[in-house]
């Protein structure tokens, strides 16, 4: 039995890593072809389908080399204070900043042109309430697709503080601050949001998401990157805070939402702060550690399911049920008065509760 086990263990270890690396090798071999293939089909040489790091670097360089001769593009337009701004970015560093004027100013260095396409106007004051910022100027070239994406070394936008911005991008480092609402979807690139008052929906597939000092309903997603959020509050009753990543870590501090859904597959989750009275919090991982750092005087009911994992609390628990015998371990307990509901679910990760 023993030798059998050992054999199985080694065989498993070897096979599983080999299987992985064979897969990866296949990807390494196939990726360049698929890039080449898509390029020949689409005849759009700037578009990189598989965002391989090397490829991106090369592209950046070529942009930089031509920067000396390239002119920058700048444009502005008067808009409504609560304007919706949509744009897509092919590549470049994107910065969007809220300012006190009811005007959008767009500035692109070393890249595409810039233009505005007014999609909708306010009937009372005739000001634009929905504007698309495009990579070509519809005023200049009417034949060119006016919905073209922006690209450049640096893309900067100033928008009214009351603006709701909606960004889609291929590879872009995105920074947005001081606007009312932000929706950002990046294929690759970090997203950093600051001072967004009434709601965020941010997703990146390769990169980190950082949010600070913001409010509203919040949804943050990253496939492989980390999620960091601190000083976040709801703007209305019922606003939910959601954060989800596959293999990244999630770190949250001072989240004042009464409802939160936090999930990571293999990454860890750290929550530091208070649970609100009557709040509902769900934390889940497959194998990652869930650690809570909460005040000693906390009042919550803990419902922990930890499969093959472990549970450890520095805080005093009043245990209601505990089952450590089965293959799906479970613990239900209260801390203090038990006001907030805290569900912790992991398959084989550890659950740790610490004093803040």
């Amino acid at each position, binding site marked *: 039995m023993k030798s059998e086990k050992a054999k199985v263990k080694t065989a498993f270890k070897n096979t599983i890593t*080999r299987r992985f*690396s*064979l897969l*990866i090798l296949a990807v390494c071999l196939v990726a360049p072809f698929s890039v080449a293939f898509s390029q020949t089909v689409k005849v759009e040489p700037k578009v990189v389908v598989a965002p*391989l790091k090397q490829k991106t670097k090369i592209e950046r360089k070529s942009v930089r080399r031509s920067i000396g001769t390239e002119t920058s593009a700048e444009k502005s337009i008067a808009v409504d204070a609560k304007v919706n701004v949509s744009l897509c970015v092919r590549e470049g560093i994107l910065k969007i900043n809220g300012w006190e004027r009811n005007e959008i100013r767009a500035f692109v260095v070393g890249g595409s042109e810039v233009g505005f396409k007014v999609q909708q106007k306010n009937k009372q004051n005739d000001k634009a309430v929905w504007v698309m910022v495009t990579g070509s100027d519809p005023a200049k070239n009417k034949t060119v697709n006016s919905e073209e994406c922006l690209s450049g070394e640096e893309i900067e936008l100033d928008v009214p503080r009351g603006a709701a911005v909606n960004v*889609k991008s291929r590879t872009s480092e995105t920074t947005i601050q001081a606007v009312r609402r932000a929706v950002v979807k990046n294929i690759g690139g970090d997203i950093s949001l600051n001072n967004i008052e009434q709601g965020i929906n941010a997703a990146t597939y*390769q990169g980190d998401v950082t949010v600070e000092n913001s409010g509203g309903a919040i949804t943050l997603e990253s*496939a492989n990157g980390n999620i960091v959020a601190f000083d976040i509050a709801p703007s209305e009753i019922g606003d939910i805070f959601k954060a989800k990543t596959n293999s990244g870590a999630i770190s949250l501090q001072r989240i004042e939402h009464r409802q939160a859904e936090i999930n990571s597959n293999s990454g860890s989750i750290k929550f530091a702060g208070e649970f609100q009275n009557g709040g509902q919090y769900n934390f889940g991982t497959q194998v990652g550690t869930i650690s809570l750092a909460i005040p000693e005087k906390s009042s919550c009911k803990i419902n922990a399911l930890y499969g093959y994992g472990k549970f450890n609390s520095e805080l005093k628990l009043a245990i209601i049920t505990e089952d450590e015998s089965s293959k799906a371990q479970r613990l239900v307990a209260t801390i203090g008065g038990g006001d907030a509901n805290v569900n912790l679910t992991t398959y*084989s990760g550890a659950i740790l509760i610490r004093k803040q």
Partner: protein
Amino acid sequence: MTDKCFDIGTMQAFLDGELAAEMTETVARHVAACDECACLLAESEEESALTFSALEMELNALVPTQRLWTKINDSIAREKKSFWKPILAFLLQPQTAAFASLIFVAVLSVTLLSLKPNAPTNYVAQTGEIQQKTIQPIAKNQLSPPAQTPLLLPEEKNTETIKSVQNKAEYRAAKTAYVRPEKVLTDAKSRDTKSDALVPAVRENSGNILGEESYIKTIATLNTTVANRKDEILSPSARFAFERDLAVTDDAIARMKLEVRRNPKNEAAKQILRASYQNKIDLLNSVADKTELMASLD
């Protein structure tokens, strides 16, 4: 992503399982974030002269244990608990139970490496075949037979999670290929009859969790989408992380299923099983969503 890369020697040691547990973890974590190292890992794999035949041999070497696995499962079904207790203990060791994920990865790599345009059909066929061979009792009850799984694709509320897929034509084509074997059953009525026929069989088994069918269906649909696109969608490092997370999640599903079957009253196991299904859907969805976003930016 910022920690430094590993040399080929470390990769070799990693592959040979010679690194300390902590180091193994570090390497795996790094490879999941670094394309260069993901490729280096694959290359050093090559250098260690591991060919497909060697892989084949490894798989064959595992067969006796798989037979044991099947046997044990059969016996559990027959409820001869006392006799099988020691074997169960062995079965629930991590290394043994991890076979589910091993098999899954094996199937994946076979599918991937074959790289045929009609991959989805192959994929289903192979999955069904292998799973029935190895973890038969589970496969029989929890997974519908290969041809039937895809038949019940839409209509279920959980299919909401399936985001519209970028290449609609391709997706539809995949779907058609999926349903083709049962194309005779086109009108809604005969389809209903067909699904009704399936339902009681599933309900009989008290070891099923509520809504399990729809989880499985959702996963089957997403699997098709993802299997078709992940090569071009994921970079080598992202791919490594994806496959690793998927293997871990599949392992969890297999083990929790087993526990729920063994003890249908274990609510904790049911909840962890449900969470694991949801995690798998999220994992697949992240690839499907990325596919969709990339298409919208073309």
